[in-house]
């Protein structure tokens, strides 16, 4: 089996070249998110639909996340799945053993060094100018918050294995407007004819379940949820779309027509569009990943209909995601618990001036003390 060669940027680049040469991308996709062209047709040995692994989430790998474990899977394949062994490719001198190690190192490089950890609070940093679009480079330095999602298994029809397993959140504000950037992995830009076969496999696998799956692919969705009314002494609304007693505000984005709706919800799938809080949005899809930017004035035009965001105060926030090619809709999907978004209070100028003044005073005093000591020493001598 040999040992791993030392990792290096050149080695990673070679790994990428071999990844292309032996066509790993056919299933795992060019970006490695499991979005390859053969991905919608994959089944396991039991004939059930199986997703090509998202190689950028090493913490979810079936066979372990270290370079050695990835190399072992490349050598042996994964029994019961479509993942083949590449040992014969080495025996046939198409690639070398070292090159297979390079593929393992490249695959590992697609994921962060450590698995992400969720944090309860998403901080919106105060800035002077907000990014214009989700692919604006101004977002690249902004902290990303990881929000894991799980299947919605409370309200029928329940959904145990959702397509989207996490959403990443970034937030900024400029004192006037809140800007959120949400990114999540979704193997298909729904509806996509290439994924018809996948929906068929899902229908067969699920049978009637709680309710039969739709015949046609729906849209991809991302919902943001806030309490309809909020103060710190209020109880949180029910996390699954609120209740009649305590409704929630929803911002519902859908890939169908790329539209964002604002409204209230009194339970999962029970949504009423309501007066706009003037939210604007912009969405991009790139090789298995959606990126959505939403902006909204902190104080909405109609403050009776939409909640205000106040810097210095935490606002509860929750998430819902659905992949239309997977048979998901506004009930079958992936949900989060309640998190909080906190808008930083912009620091007033005195915060920056006060330390400088303090430093100057201290230095001045120090100099005075030293001078005096020197003077005294001269007088004594």
């Amino acid at each position, binding site marked *: 089996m040999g040992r791993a060669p030392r990792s290096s940027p050149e080695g990673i680049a070679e790994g990428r070249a071999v990844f292309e*040469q*032996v*066509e790993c991308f*056919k*299933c795992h996709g060019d970006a490695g998110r499991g979005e390859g*062209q*053969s991905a919608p*047709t*994959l*089944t396991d*040995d039991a004939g059930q639909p199986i997703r090509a692994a998202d190689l950028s989430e090493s913490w979810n790998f079936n066979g372990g996340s270290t370079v050695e474990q990835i190399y072992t899977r490349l050598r042996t*394949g994964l*029994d019961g799945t*479509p*993942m*083949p*062994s*590449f*040992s*014969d*490719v080495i025996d*046939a001198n*198409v690639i070398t053993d070292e090159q297979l190690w390079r593929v393992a190192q490249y695959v590992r490089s697609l994921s962060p060094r450590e698995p992400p950890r969720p944090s309860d609070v998403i901080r919106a940093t105060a800035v002077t100018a907000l990014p214009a679009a989700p692919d604006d480079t101004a977002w690249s330095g902004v902290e990303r918050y990881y929000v894991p999602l799980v299947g919605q298994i409370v309200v029928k029809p329940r959904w145990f294995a959702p397509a989207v397993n996490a959403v990443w959140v970034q937030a900024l504000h400029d004192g006037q407007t809140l800007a959120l950037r949400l990114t999540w992995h979704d193997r298909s830009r729904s509806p996509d004819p*290439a994924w018809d*076969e996948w929906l068929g496999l899902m229908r067969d696998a699920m049978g009637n379940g709680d309710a039969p799956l739709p015949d046609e692919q729906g849209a991809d969705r991302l919902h943001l949820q806030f309490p309809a009314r909020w103060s710190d002494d209020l109880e949180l609304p029910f996390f699954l779309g609120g209740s009649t007693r305590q409704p929630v505000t929803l911002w519902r984005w859908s890939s169908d027509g790329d539209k964002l709706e604002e409204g209230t919800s009194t339970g999962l799938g029970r949504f009423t569009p309501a007066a706009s809080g003037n939210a604007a949005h912009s969405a991009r899809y790139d090789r298995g990943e959606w990126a959505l930017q939403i902006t909204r004035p902190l104080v909405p035009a109609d403050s009776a209909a939409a909640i205000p965001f106040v810097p210095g105060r935490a606002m509860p926030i929750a998430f819902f995601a659905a992949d239309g090619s997977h048979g998901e809709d506004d009930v079958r999907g992936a949900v989060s618990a309640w998190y909080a978004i906190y808008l930083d209070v912009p620091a007033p100028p005195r915060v920056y001036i006060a330390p400088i003044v303090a430093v100057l005073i201290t230095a001045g005093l120090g100099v005075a003390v030293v001078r005096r000591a020197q003077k005294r020493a001269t007088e004594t001598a």
Partner: protein
Amino acid sequence: MKLGILSAIIAAAGVLGAAGPAVQGAAVTGTVKFTGTPPANPKVDMSEEDACKGKYTADPVVTVTGGNLKDVLVYVKSGLPAGQKFPASTAPVVVDQEGCLYHPRTLAVMAGQPLEIRNSDPVLHNIKVVAKRNRGFNISQPTRGMKTTRTFTAQEIAIPIACNVHGWMHANLNVFTHPFFAVTGADGAFTIRGLPAGTYEVEAWHEKLGVQTMSVTVPATGSTPANFSFKAGS
């Protein structure tokens, strides 16, 4: 009866000793026909694969030419003397991946006989074999001209071979512990050679059209006819 068994053993010994074309014993020959309108083959859209698109537009599950049925496995199902061992041929059976289809689609080898898997396409194929009595495998052939050889150990009919990269690619592998089998070509004809005299159950198997069996009694030498016919909707 005793004499029959004795002659069968002698004839089988002849098979054991046979090296080359001069196979002793009797033969069963015939043709597999298809009557009526063959079922439509599933359409295949290869537009996603530049190297293969346009070459084939359907998965040739049922191939009928002039009433003759291709890709039928014909084999001796029972009647061979128990405990008889037959040496495996060392000549490989070849399956080629060309135009993102398997050629041929029905394969038969003896246990121990090499199966050579070739890739004539300039694209990645994986070859996944899920067997019940044999050891399965799932290997990759990412380049044109790659060859991989595998052998099998136990008798097993209708082992599926599939490619996950190209979900429409299917073939059938059959493994025997004896050499009395054949697969029909485009002319629907088959010949099973070297059989000892006796009465055998001969089965014709097709992946979609099912099986037909007949009892065939063969003398010590010469050729005995056995013709099969499948029908539409059967």
